[in-house]
């Protein structure tokens, strides 16, 4: 299985395969998006094994909920990413996970503080290709909080001690920056 050729399908083909419950869709989704989805999950849940379990849950949920995906409302990846992120946030807030991870709290906080002070790279992002994204730090922090860390924009505003409008603007500016880079 691991040696077979990577499958890449167009968004439309993918959606169709998924809707008719063709398992080629899962193979293609895995090849195309497992890394991106695990990236999203890993920002919220640092524990590798738990994150990978969540990735598996994400694929199951994508498969089972394929019928509810509406292509007219957005791209497939956006939908899948929200599935992954919601699973991860639910896990983060679940009682058993909180208990199991009490010891990691400090470490996570240190990591977060370090990130804020820009003294270290996010270990999860290390090893990626040459860090093409050079967002302004104030944009990147806000974006990462709401995009990757599972914060709502309200929580992010509180956390960063910024007005809600500023957070919204920064998110928009950050994404505009990204659009310039990618599009």
């Amino acid at each position, binding site marked *: *299985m*691991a040696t077979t050729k990577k499958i890449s399908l167009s968004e439309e083909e993918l959606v169709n395969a998924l809707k008719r*419950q*063709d*398992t080629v869709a*899962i*193979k293609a989704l*895995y090849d195309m*998006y*497992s*890394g*991106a*989805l*695990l*990236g*999203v999950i*890993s*920002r919220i849940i640092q524990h*590798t094994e738990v*994150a*990978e379990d969540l*990735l*598996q849950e994400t*694929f*199951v949920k994508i*498969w089972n909920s394929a019928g509810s995906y509406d292509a007219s*409302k*957005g*791209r497939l*990846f*956006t939908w899948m*990413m*929200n599935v992954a*992120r*919601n699973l991860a946030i639910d896990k983060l807030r679940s009682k058993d996970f909180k208990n199991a991870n009490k010891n990691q709290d400090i470490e996570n906080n240190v990591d977060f503080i370090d990130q804020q002070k820009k003294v270290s790279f996010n270990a*999860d*992002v290390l090893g*990626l*290709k040459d860090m*093409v*994204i050079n967002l302004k730090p104030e944009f990147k922090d806000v*974006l990462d909080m*709401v*995009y*990757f860390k599972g914060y*709502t*924009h309200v929580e992010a505003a509180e956390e960063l001690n910024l007005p809600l409008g500023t957070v*919204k*603007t920064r*998110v*928009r500016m950050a*994404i505009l920056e*990204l*659009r310039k*880079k*990618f*599009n």
Partner: protein
Amino acid sequence: MEEVKAYIESGILELYVLGQLNTQECSEVEAMANKYPEVKAELSAIELALESYALENAVAPSSALEEKILAQFNTNTITEKLPEPKVVPLYEGQKDGTVRTLRFALIACSILLVVSLGALFSAHNDLSQANEQIATLSLDKEKFASTVSKLQFDKSGMENRIAMTETNEWATVKLAGVKDSPKAKMLVYWNKNNKNILINYAAMDLPKTDQAHEYQLWALVDGKPVSLGVFGNTDNAKEAVKQMETIAKAQAFAVTIEPTGGSQNPTMEKMVVMGGVTI
């Protein structure tokens, strides 16, 4: 268009893509996107940007995970997708239905067989009872018939005796038992006119003889025994009254037991009754 521009710049579309809006706000964004192509285009651009950002921030799963995840779908779902293996019936045609029908028929036959065996057993019991009853009844009938014939036999004998007493032609000679057979007795009827001799089984009580012997009636005429014929046991007699040979004159009558067919001379030791003529 100013309104649309302001809407785009408010940052709500970014929050929509990031899943940060509630249901009502989402519906509002979707309505705007349907109404204004610019909003839709903006949404797509945001989505693509964030998608690329996510891909740039990808974290490679451990190598074992792919197999683990895909295996789950293989076992759970691919098997479902496989075309159903075509089942070719061993025999042509719709044998399944026939087999099912035959199976029901077999069960029905089995039940019928059990019921039949039960009925047969019950009937067999009834039949043996009936047979026993028939045997008993025919035995009773035989007894009854023999009783009737005995009664008729006795009746004819009695009628004869009554008839003889009504005329004066008949002399009755009483024969009494002798030493060896003291209880034996017998009557001999002798016609005074034509000298006929009759004996009546209804009027005799003699010791039984075996198959090889019978009774012989003798008349003593001037000291000499004259045979008047033989007669058998009551059981073998066909008529109650038997006519013996005639004798013109006699002083006495006697009965001896002789070998079947009678003897020339009486065996005196075997004499059972004797009586003198008193007339």
